[in-house]
């Protein structure tokens, strides 16, 4: 089995549940379009139906077949995406990151302001900030639960597309063209790809 690139998306429960799910699903679907082996799923141990509880969504991308079907958590994430920037304070979002990782935060603040709240910066290689609500002022809230049963609004229509576009630029895990083919709001993904503020460490 080759190297598996693990992506963890953190968000607030219910209010950002769909957008966070879209980030993970869009990145996985875009990588699948490039012929890679992918997985995209939610963490069921979190409390997904309580408002503002921290929830996690996962994606895995690999060049060869992913064998770890029964690991329900990304223990060593390489790319961490925060849909809710405040989570950088409340919890160690970089837990398990081995080195050369990326942190992508949905905020209008500068990467330096975010770095202030991270005590251990060793595993990080890049910190990026993108003002998702500024690029696409739309965060879809749905109550279809975390399984993504009925997604009437469209996958990647709000800030999820923006964060996926930023992740494509910062980490290079997917190509922006294949991502734009997957998301509904392709223009937002393109703008995020161009406007994301990256700080190298």
């Amino acid at each position, binding site marked *: 089995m080759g190297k598996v690139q693990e992506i963890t998306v953190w968000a607030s429960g219910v209010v950002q549940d769909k957008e966070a799910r879209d980030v993970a699903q869009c990145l996985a679907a875009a990588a699948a379009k490039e012929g890679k082996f992918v997985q995209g799923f939610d963490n*069921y141990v*979190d409390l997904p139906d309580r408002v*503002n509880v921290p929830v996690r969504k996962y994606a895995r991308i690999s060049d060869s077949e992913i064998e770890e079907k029964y690991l329900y958590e990304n223990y060593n994430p390489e790319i961490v995406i925060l849909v809710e920037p*405040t989570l950088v304070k409340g919890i*160690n979002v970089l837990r398990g990151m081995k080195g050369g990782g990326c942190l992508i935060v949905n905020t209008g603040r500068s990467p330096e302001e975010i770095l202030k709240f991270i005590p251990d910066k060793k595993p990080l290689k890049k910190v990026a900030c993108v003002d998702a609500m500024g690029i696409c002022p739309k965060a879809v809230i749905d109550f279809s639960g975390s399984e993504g049963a009925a997604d009437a609004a469209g996958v990647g229509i709000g800030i999820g597309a923006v964060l996926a576009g930023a992740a494509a630029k910062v980490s290079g895990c997917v190509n922006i063209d294949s991502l734009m083919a997957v998301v509904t709001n392709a223009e937002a993904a393109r703008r995020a790809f161009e406007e994301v503020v990256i700080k190298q460490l």
Partner: protein
Amino acid sequence: MRDYTVKIPKEKLLPEAGIVKSPLPNSEQPDMITGGWRILRPVIDKEKCTMCKTCWIFCPDGSIEITENEVRVNLKYCKGCGICANVCPVGAIDRVPELDFDDVPVRLEKLF
């Protein structure tokens, strides 16, 4: 008769989603520290506060602490729901973005 019970060591048991033991009287709930959920922090203006204790009644987490001459918020458990700011009759509670503050009241290593 054979015993078919499977004995699983405690550390290998699956995490119980959302199930938290009830706290003992006059104690904290260390299994469910909710301070990390907070997006907007309630800040009490001591000039305006009349000590009416309405926020203490309404706080769903019991995070309002009343002392002799001031009202404080327990930031370890306050999840920033904003009910206190909404019910305050004199408007003494303001909600400020958590990232504006440099102090970190709660920093969990992992969720559960």
